[in-house]
């Protein structure tokens, strides 16, 4: 609808320099203004859309081919061996028994993501305020008292349900994480960062549990993650519980550990439109960009 020489963007910049907010951010500002009238260049969207059509057709053809070439014995094989997995939900049976490696690596990826976000931490915390602020908002506090215990109960239920019906540890973990995010933004809870030892222990608990169980069953069955007969159900349930808690803690940490907001006049983290934003931000003695510079 509007090109790069957007009169509104220029106008907003002028307004900002009048109010004295300082740094020129004309490239960010149009994205944040709240009139919803600016659309991206239409031609780009249409090009992307047109590119996606053949991709979709190819995908559909591929799926069709895959459906034709799929080994018809697999569903029967799973159904036949399902009693050995210790659970009656085939998805859980495949994920935690037949293909435990997959799940182990999935959780490892989540832990790696948490470490990556944590490494961006610059010592300032977004959610650093003391807890207890929700008392200022009795209505919000009341609904939290209702919703958060319900979410916790539902998460336990989903974890347990995963052995027999469609549900499981990841779903429960995501739900717990939602409750944790709610508590965090409502400032009831002051979540520790990933630097805290308990957080690290719990987050690693999912992977560690998998590895420990996998090695512990080695003497009995001779294979990594091959559960001994009769032990499959309790082992899977325990692993699921550890997974749920680990996923929840990791997801909340992803929310908590995002690099915090710089103070508006901070030289750290100031985007310099003319230079490399990253290099600028990391340089310890970077000078603030001159607002008057072109």
């Amino acid at each position, binding site marked *: 609808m509007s090109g790069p020489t957007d009169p509104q963007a220029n106008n907003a910049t002028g*307004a*900002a320099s009048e109010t004295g907010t300082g740094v020129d951010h004309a490239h960010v500002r149009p994205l944040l203004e*709240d*009139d*919803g009238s600016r659309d991206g260049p239409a031609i780009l969207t249409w090009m992307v859309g047109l590119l996606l059509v053949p991709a979709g057709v190819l995908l559909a053809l591929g799926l069709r081919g895959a459906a034709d070439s799929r080994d018809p014995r697999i569903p029967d094989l799973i159904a036949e061996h399902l009693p050995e997995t210790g659970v009656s939900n085939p998805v859980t049976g495949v994920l935690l028994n037949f293909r435990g490696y997959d799940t182990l690596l999935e959780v490892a990826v989540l832990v790696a993501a948490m470490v990556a976000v944590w490494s961006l931490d610059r010592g300032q915390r977004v959610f650093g305020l003391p807890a207890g602020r929700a008392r200022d908002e009795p209505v919000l506090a009341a609904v939290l008292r209702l*919703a958060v215990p319900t*979410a916790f109960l539902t998460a336990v239920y989903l974890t347990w349900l995963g052995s027999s019906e469609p549900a499981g540890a990841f779903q429960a973990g995501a*739900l717990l994480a939602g409750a944790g995010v709610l508590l965090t933004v*409502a400032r009831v809870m002051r979540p520790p960062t990933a630097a805290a030892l308990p957080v690290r222990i719990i987050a690693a608990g999912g992977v560690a549990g998998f590895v420990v169980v996998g090695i512990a069953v080695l003497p009995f069955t001779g294979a990594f993650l091959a559960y001994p007969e009769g032990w499959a159900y309790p082992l899977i349930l325990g692993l699921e519980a550890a997974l749920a808690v680990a996923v929840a803690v990791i997801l909340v940490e992803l929310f908590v550990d995002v690099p915090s907001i710089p103070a508006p006049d901070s030289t750290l983290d100031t985007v310099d439109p003319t230079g490399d934003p990253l290099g600028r931000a990391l340089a310890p003695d970077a000078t603030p960009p001159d607002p008057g510079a072109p």
Partner: protein
Amino acid sequence: MTAFLLGVAIFLLANVAAGLVRVIRGPTQADRVVAAQLFGTTGVAILLVLSVAMDARPLRDVALIFALLAVVISVAFVKRGWVRAPGQPSRAEPSLPREEP
């Protein structure tokens, strides 16, 4: 009965699709959040109706998750996302009087 229940689900989904116009048109951020909230409530209704129509009990678990988490976005928005974008009237200075073109 099943056809009727599915018809109800179609009606509710069309309702949501119409409500999404508010997300696109705004004009304030809060209006967009309210429209997203509509999706939470109506989604619960759709899932409940579908759980009977498709005879699938797990859908009621999905509805429970919708209900529990519908509030997260709104609270996160009020507590976290609602910043005054540059150029918007501020708390201190009330919005300018409207001028008819």
